[in-house]
């Protein structure tokens, strides 16, 4: 049974998986000729990024972020994806992948493996970037004694 946390984690993993990986997975799902309905066309839309400024703790609108959402139904399972940027194919592929898992499609096992692998790649990249920055961590010394 798909829990809310499973679904949310899958959503996040789809949003950060490479577009060509999602495309391949979606092609595999559609190759079995399932029932397929597009509920929301993949068109670029805007998210207004809200931030709580840390001085007075009040939210403000920083600016908008372009994302592409899509929603589909595959074999009775529903899928929703949102991909960063103007990315119609990736968003539609992501929604198909999400719906396929929801419907228990035979490709589900491979989808889970590919999404987990992509998440690991992303985690590794992020950790490496953090490690690079940490390599420049500095401990400034005041030189008042030398003056």
């Amino acid at each position, binding site marked *: 049974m798909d829990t809310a946390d499973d*679904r949310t984690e899958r959503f996040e993993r789809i949003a950060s998986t490479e577009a060509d990986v999602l495309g391949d997975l979606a092609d595999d799902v559609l190759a079995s000729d399932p029932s397929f309905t597009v509920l929301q066309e993949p068109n670029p839309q805007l998210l207004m*990024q809200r931030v709580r400024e840390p001085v007075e703790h009040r939210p403000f609108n920083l*600016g908008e972020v372009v994302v592409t959402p899509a929603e589909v139904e595959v074999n009775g399972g529903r899928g929703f994806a949102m991909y960063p940027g103007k990315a119609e194919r990736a968003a539609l592929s992501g929604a198909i992948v999400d719906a396929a898992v929801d419907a228990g499609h035979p490709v589900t096992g491979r989808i889970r493996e590919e999404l987990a692998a992509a998440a690991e790649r992303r985690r590794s990249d992020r950790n490496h970037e*953090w490690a690079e920055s940490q390599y420049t961590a500095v401990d400034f010394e005041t030189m008042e004694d030398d003056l």
Partner: protein
Amino acid sequence: MGYVAVKAGEELIERAEELFEKQRLEGETDPVSVDQLDEQLGRLSAQAMSEGGLYAPRLAALAVKQAQGDTVEASFLLRAYRSTLERWDETTVVDPAEMVTTRRVSPAYKDIPGGQILGPTKDYTQRLLDFDLDGEDDPEDPTQEWDIGGEEPPDTLDNVMDVLRDQGLVHEPDGPTDDDPADITRDPVTYPAGRDAVLQALARGETGAVTALGYSALRGYGQVHPTLAEVRVGRLPVKIEHPYTGVEATVTSVEVSESEAVVPVYAKRDDPQFAFGYGLTFGRNERKVIAMTILDASIQLDTEDEPAENPEFVLNTVDGLDSFGFIEHLKLPHYVTFQSILDRIRAIRENESVGAGTADESSRDADEQLAEASDD
């Protein structure tokens, strides 16, 4: 002043546009790809995103290419594109402490929670032209020999303002509010402007304008000379409520620059605490975000004594598209309005009998004079 439409011919406008496009292509090198701009000239696309108020790195790189490197023109293209899109929703409110930081320095304190990280910067090196970059062939990654691990970044980094707040040196806010903030992309700014509107307007302000006005306060045309509590660069998560589960989910992240400052105006207050300023904007743009911090602090003084302290003056002049449009419209045809001005001046001169000896010459039609000149 009224405006009168003119027409010239669509074909001529197309020819002018084709000449503009030719300037990009007439060199002997291959066209610059959008990927190259995105990867190698990220500061340009970051500036276009910041001033356009729209985060979309690849589209920003495309806009920079189309604008031939003119960042304000590129931000214009981004805002025009943005106007064609629907808004899906607002994100959930994110705390800047959640930023995955790649650079963080504190000019105020030597030792800060989480430490200082120089990150990718050339701040501490000499500005000398590197002639090796001209004609470089197969360059090597200078960090490839680094012996580094891969530990997880912390979930949050406490900010320096909290250190001061813990000591009672900065005003303690009433508590988090979740009121919907003003959105100047939908409702025009009215005065007095709320701090939410001020921060949004400054975040999308034109870099040069924000920097110049911030600088004016430092140069003595204002009271604010802050100490920066910290400057950060990193990635902020973009989160929504998942439409099926209602659980908060991360869609992506956006690169931002952030700055916090304290301002010693304690001598003028009953309660001797620091005033403060805050800046946050899309992309890597430390110059702009520090200037934004100065302007936020200056605007809170809300005086008409100095330009930087006058919220209406600042917010009416920092937007790149507003100033770009108004300044550049002056080069468009103003024939009818100018003719009207000429007529008025001639009438005044005639009534006052000024320059009687040249009256005939001055009243001749300007077109007639131009025609004569072209015959020469």
